[in-house]
Structure formats: C-alpha cells, structure tokens
C-alpha cells in the first residue's frame, strides 16, 4: 500500500520535472539581448542575475569554512566586478526598466551586486549558493527558486533574483555565464518561459 503511494508520488514528481524541462526547451528559441532589454521596459519579466566578477586567487582568505556573516571567509567581488555591476545599474536606471521586488542570496558578492544594480533588495537565505551543499539540499534550493519564479504575479514591474550559477542549474537547468549575466524569464499560463540571457557586455553604454 505504502509502496504504491510512494511510487505514485515519484511518478508525479518526475512528470512535473520533465514538463518543466519540456517548457524550457519549447521556448528555447532565445531572443537576442537587445530585444530582451527592449521587452524589459514593459515590465512583467523575471530577471535572474549572477553576481559580478569575483577574485580567483585569494591567498589572504582564511582557509576555513564559509561564514555568511563574515565577508572575509567568502569569495568577493573584485574591483572590476564592483565597476561592472555599478555600470549595469546605471544602464537599467537610464533605460527606465521598471524593477519591482529584488531578492538576493545572503552571500556578500550577491548582496553587493543587488545593491549596486537595483538599490533596494531583500535577502532570501534560500537563494544561498547550492554548490557545496548535499545533493538533497541543492535540489531543495533549486526547487525553491523555481517556485519563487513561478509565483511571481507582478506584471507591471520586473521581479529580480540575485544569485549564483549552481542554484539556477539545480532549479531550472540553465547555467548563467559569465559573472554578471542576467537571465530573463516570463511566466505565461502557469509555465516559466526562458526568454534569453543579457551578458554584461550586451547592455548598451550609457550616453
């Protein structure tokens, strides 16, 4: 009896997951970045933004476990990165792209990015980097991201999530590359539609 119930549950999960993937592929035809930027102006889109450029060789970093309250235990934005996100922030402001709710991972590099690009933001602990987590936890975080995007109802403004590569890969099977990229989605008839990516260099220069 119990086995049957679990079996049924498993089937439901698999089928919903495959539906999700199918939905992604259906609209796989990505729109070019300039079209996306144009679309964003009318609002109603979801923007998942990877943090800006970070340090690779950081011999000063304490070789200890990461502490979210202490930025020195984390991989942080480089100077180049800070300039990069500040520039993107200026462009979005100048293009008058309407920004609604902004949620950020609790890491320093994402909070710095959110602040620099969109100004006001909320920290969502469940957007934390899922890379070094156990498989189950990673899946849980991915699911959280998916649910959060799906539950967005704001059609006037664009809703923003600032996070990491692994979460988007775990939640929607999309790898956001490079650092500072914005991945655009839209919710249509209960489905999340992947519209395309806007790389940091795709943003027009500020006049």
């Amino acid at each position: 009896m119990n086995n049957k119930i679990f079996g049924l549950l498993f089937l439901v999960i698999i089928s919903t997951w495959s539906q999700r993937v199918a939905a992604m592929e259906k609209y796989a035809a990505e729109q070019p970045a300039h079209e996306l930027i144009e679309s964003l102006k009318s609002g109603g889109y979801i923007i998942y933004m990877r943090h800006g450029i970070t340090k690779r060789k950081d011999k000063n970093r304490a070789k200890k476990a990461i502490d979210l309250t202490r930025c020195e235990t984390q991989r942080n934005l480089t100077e180049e990165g800070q300039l990069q996100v500040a520039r993107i922030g200026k462009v979005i402001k100048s293009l008058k792209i309407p920004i609604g709710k902004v949620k950020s991972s609790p890491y320093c590099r994402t909070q710095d990015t959110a602040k620099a690009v969109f100004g006001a933001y909320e920290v969502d602990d469940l957007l934390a980097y899922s890379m070094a987590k156990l498989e189950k936890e990673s899946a849980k975080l991915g699911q959280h991201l998916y649910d959060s995007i799906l539950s967005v109802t704001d059609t006037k403004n664009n809703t923003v999530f600032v996070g990491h590569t692994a979460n988007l890969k775990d939640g929607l099977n999309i790898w956001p590359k490079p650092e500072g990229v914005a991945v655009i989605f839209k919710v249509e008839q209960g489905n999340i539609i992947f519209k395309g990516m806007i790389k940091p260099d795709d943003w027009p220069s500020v006049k």
Partner: protein
Amino acid sequence: MLGSLSIRDRFLISPLIGVLLTLILYFTSDQILQSHAKLFSHINESNLPQISEISQVTLLLSESNSEIITLLLESEGFDEEEIYVEGKKQLNNLYRIKERLAKSINEQESLIIDDEDIFLAIKNAFRDYLTEARLSIEMSSVDAKQASYELVLANKKLKTLNQLFLKLSQHYSNNLTEQAKLVEGTLYQETYITELAIVLIALMLWSAFYFSKHTSKGLTQVYSALIKLSKGDIAIENYQHNDAYIKNIWTAVCQFKQSIEKSERYQNELLIQKFAMDQHFIIATTDLKGVITYANSKFSEISGYSIDELIGSNHRIVNSGNQPKVYWQNMFNIVSKGNVWHDEVLNKAKDGSEYWVDTSIIPMTAVEDKNKITGYIAIRTDITDKKLQHQKLIDANVIAESAVIAKGQFLASMSHEIRTPMNGVIGMLELVLNNELDTKNRQQLELAQVSAKSLLSLINDILDFSKVDAGKLELESTEFSLQNLLSEFTESMQIQAKQKDVLLQLTMKNLSDKVVIGDPGRIRQVLTNLVGNAIKFTKKGSVSIEVKLIEYSESTWHFNCVITDTGIGLPQKSLENLFDSFNQVDASTTRKYGGTGLGLAISKRLTTLMAGDISVTSEVKVGSSFQFTIPLSKSNKIVEKTIQRPPTLAELDIPTWPENTRLLLVEDNRVNQLVILGILKRFGLKADVAINGAKAISALEQSNNCYDVILMDCQMPEMDGYDATRHIRKNQLVNYSASTPIIALTANAMNGDREKCLKAGMNDYLTKPIEPELLLTKLKHWLFIQ
C-alpha cells in the same frame, strides 16, 4: 546391601554410570565450548570489522581524491557547467564517505591512543580534509588552477587522516593478537573432566565386575541344580548364600524339588491304585470320536482282543448290537455335556460270546479349561455272572408273584363260594327262628345260628387277612364320632361279656363332641378283635377299655386305646411273635379257645395301614394289656347326641308301602330266593322272581315295565347282573321307565365290586348274606323316592 538389589538393578548400574559419565562430559564440554565461542565472537564483534572498515574508508577516500585530481587535470576540455556536474558528484561522494565514517566512529566510545582520543582526531582530520576538498570543487567550475591549489591543501589534510587510520589499525591488530592469546590460554584451561571420567569408568568396571562375579556364581550353581532336577535327580546340594536375590532363587528351587518329590509320591500312589484297579476293572480311554487310546489287560482278557488290537480301534468293536442307536446317541449326549453316564451294557467279545458289564463313562477335561472335553474314560466291571443270577431271581419272583395272585384269586372265589351257602344257612335259620318252636328245637336252632355266624366271621377274617396281605384293602375316609362308635361297640360286646360274667367298662377322655375323619369300620374291627380276645381269655374279673384323644397337630389327633383284662395272660417269650399270622400262644390254645389266630395279625396290619401302631404287655395269670394308637384327621363337625342302636328284626319299623308295589328279584340260587322272599314277606312286600338276566329282561318286557325296584344278583348263569343291567339301561332309553332302581345283591365282598355295579348302571349295593334291616333301609329309600 548390594546383595538385596534385583537382577535388573544390578545390570542397570554399569550403564547408568556410563550415562552419567556421558552427561557430565557433555555438559562440561558444552560449557567450555560456549565460553570459547563467546571469546571468538567478541573478537568478531570488535576488532576485525573495524580494521576492515578503516581499510575500506581509506580506499574510498583515495579513490575519491584521485577522481577530483583527474577532474581538475581534465578541466580544460570541459565547460563550467560540465565541471560543476562532475564536481558535484565527487562532493556528494565525499559526503557519503563522511556519513559512513561518522557511523562507524560514533558507535565507539572514545579510544585513547598515545594520550590522544583517536576517534576525535580522525573526525577533525576528516572535517579539515572535507573543507579543503569542498573549496577545491567549488572553485573547479570557476578556476581550475585555483581549484588544484585548494586540492593540494586538501591532500595534506588527507595524509594526516591516513596516518591516524594507520594508528587505529595498528591498535586493533594489537588487540586482536592479545585476544587470540587469551583464547589460546582458555582453550588449554584445566578442567576436571579427565579425573572425573577416570573415576566413573573405574566405578563402572568395578560394578560390572562385582555383580557379574557374585551373581553369575550363584546363578551357575542354580543352573546346574535345575539341570539335575530336570533329569530327575533330586539329590541336589543347597549352597548357602548371603545374597538375598540368589537366596530367593534357591528357595524357589527347593520348593520345585519338593513339588517334584511330592508328585513322584502321588505318581507312585496312582500307580498302585491303577494296579489295584486293573485287577478289578476294565479300563479304557478314548478320544472324542470313541477311538481307543488306552486299554488295560483286563479289557484285553475279557474282550479277547489284544491290547494292540484294541488301541486305535473304535470302541464299537465290542458293541453287541443289542442296544438301539438311540441308546448310544443318548449316552453321547450325556457325556459330551460333561456328565457321567452309567448303565449296564451287554458287550461282545472277539469270539462272539456276549458279556455284561457295569459301565461308567466319564468325560476327561483339559487341564487348562475344565469345560473342554478331550476324551472319555470307560470303567467297567464284568457282571455277567451277577446278571445271570439276577435273571434267575427275577424268574423266581415272577413265579412267586403268580402264586400270590393265584392265592388271592383262590381266596376271592372261595369267599364267594362259601358265603353263598352260608347265606342260605343263616337266612333259613333266621326264618325258622321267626316261627313258633318248642324250646328244645329253638335252642338247637339258635346254636346252629351262632355256629353259622361264627363260621362266617372266620371266613371274613381269612378274607380280610388275604386282602391286607395282597395290599388290596383300601381304607375309607369318612367323618364319624369316636364317642358314638365306642359306645355302640361296647354295648354290642356287653352280651358276650355278660355271658362270661365279665365286667366290661369303657372310659373316655377328651372325646366328647369331637368328629374325626377315618375308617370307622376298620377301627371297629381292631376293637372287636382285641376286646373279643380279652373277653374270651378272661374267666373272671373285668375288661376295661380306656380311650384318649391326644392333640398331635392342628389337623391331626392321636387316638390312643388301651384294653386291659384280668385273664390268663401271656408268657413273655410268646409276646415277640404274637402279632405274626396264624400264631396263637400254642396249638392247644386253638383247641381250647377256638379262633383262627388271625385276629391279632389282622389288627396289627390294619393299625399299620392306618399309620398307627399296636403293642402288648402281659403277665401270666395276671392279665394282658393291649394298646394301639392311630392318627385321625380333625373335622369341624360336632357330634349329634343320638344313640343309634341297630334294631332287631322284630323291632323293625315297617312302613305302609304304596299300593301295588311290585318288586323283581333276579337270583339263580333257590335257597337265596327263599331267604330274600321270606324277608320281603315280613316287610309286607311281594316279588316276582327271574332266575337270570335274560329272564329278568323278558319279565320286564311282559309286565310292561311296572316294577318299582329290581333286586339283582350279580353272578348268574346265561346272563349275569352286570350285562342285564347294562341291557335294561340301554333299552330303557326307548321302552322302559329310565328310573327303575336296581339294587345289587352280591357275594363278591372283594374291593371294587361296588364300583363295578354302579358303573354297570345299578343304583345301590348290598352284600350277601343280606342283613334284613339294611335291605329295609334301602327299600324305604328307593320306594319312597318314587
């Protein structure tokens, strides 16, 4: 104490000790094995699996580590996303190893090696390695070089971890060695099994030896004694034994010996008895079918067959064939049911001669079942000679009996033949004496009358005696008054007493108004004989009759009568034979006093016949005393106080007969005709005479059946009274008045005459000589009935 054990217990002791020994060995060894097993299982549970676990964890870690290295080395060929997926796999792998290690380490309590908690150290070292490795993997998708650098750091931590694993493995190995040493020591631990086993085995052997020695010796002696006994040798030695069991066997053997001795004694006695029996009896045994299985020499001697011829033959070999088949079937029915058959049998010898044997056939039964018949024993005595003598006796007896019958017939016919003329003589004298006669003639005729009556009584005595002797006298059984009988009797005897000037006295005790049942006529006859004798033999003096009635039981009285006289008495020696027939004191007595000498013999026989007895005491010249006692049945009636006296002829009360009364006298004898006609004339009656039965019938026919009574003589020529009566009665049914009374007049005084007359159809019965008063009574009866 051991001697009182039963043989079973003795043989059980050794095996019991053996079983005990086995049980002890089993339980002891089981315990040791269990303790060793525990040690081994302890080793199993602790050290060995841990060593193996450590080795496996070490292996897994090295594999995982080299995978990460491979990933980083090949990272140039992949994009970020692919590296991320592979790195994620390796990271999860590390997490699994961490869980496994935590599981195997958390189960243990702390273990201190070289002043350091090794488990805690391993946990920390692994955590450090994991942190570095995680950083390396995290970085792998971002910067492979940075990641490789991080991995180098991680490998340093791994080295520390491996050193700790080595330390723990060594520790476990050392433990294992120590425990193995401990087990080895325990394995050779000292137990007392060997000592206990030795003691028990010794005890087992000893008990087996002890009992077999003692018991077998005793049993061997008993065995040889029994062998001797079985061969019939009863001279056996009786060994003394302390052993109770053997002693009991010896007691049984001694009893067996005694029983053999006893049976030999019995056998000897039986042989002697058999020898004695063989001298006297014919003995044979047969099987169930009658086949002879044993025959003694007497059998062979009498039958003429040899013993060999007899054995194996059926017993029918000596059957004479004189008995029918049914006879032998009956015999077989009796013996086959287990009963003894006995009879005298005529057998046939080999030469064909026949011999009589007194035979008993006895069934033999099986020892085990008394109801099962296995054969028969026949015991016979040769009685051929006895049988011949017996036959002679039977023949002689037949002759004697026919003589007695002839005598009885002679007496009966004599009594008839004598009575008939006597009837005439007495009747004529009676008639003559009724006429007027001169004194002298009257005296002479009266003397003749007395003599004739005396002669008649003498004849009656002889007749009575012969009747009693032949057993033909039957007693009457009527109710009567003893008092009346005795009074009348005494009165009738007074004439005789007065003639002799003897005083006759009657004394009665306890007799008044008692009616008894018996034969008054025969009692009167005894009294007549005894009182008549007393008067006869008494010249002067008195005769007394003393009578008592003694109550004997509820239904019976004893009538006791003593007649005492003062006569001549009897000599003592003659008293013994006094009641024998024809015996008077001496021959001269008969001459002097007269009489047949039968009176006392008849009295004796009559009292005996009435179940009484008679006796006498006497003294010569003083007197005699006769006494008799007779049992009489009681009656409920009470005596009517009337004294009847037989009236004399002159005194007879003659009635006035009905007019034209006619009688028919059928009588062949001329004298009797005259006598009866004379008597009837005095009664005022007339009669026609027919001289035989045929004439009587024709007279009846001619007179048109007008006779009122027929007096019928029985024995007549041509047609006797019986036939005439039968004829009259038969024809009367058609022609004559059926009710003409016929009164028989017969001289046949023998018993059965009355029945014969009545059966022929006569109405009444009178014996000759005719008593006038009796005839008158009968005539009154029959004529007035009409």
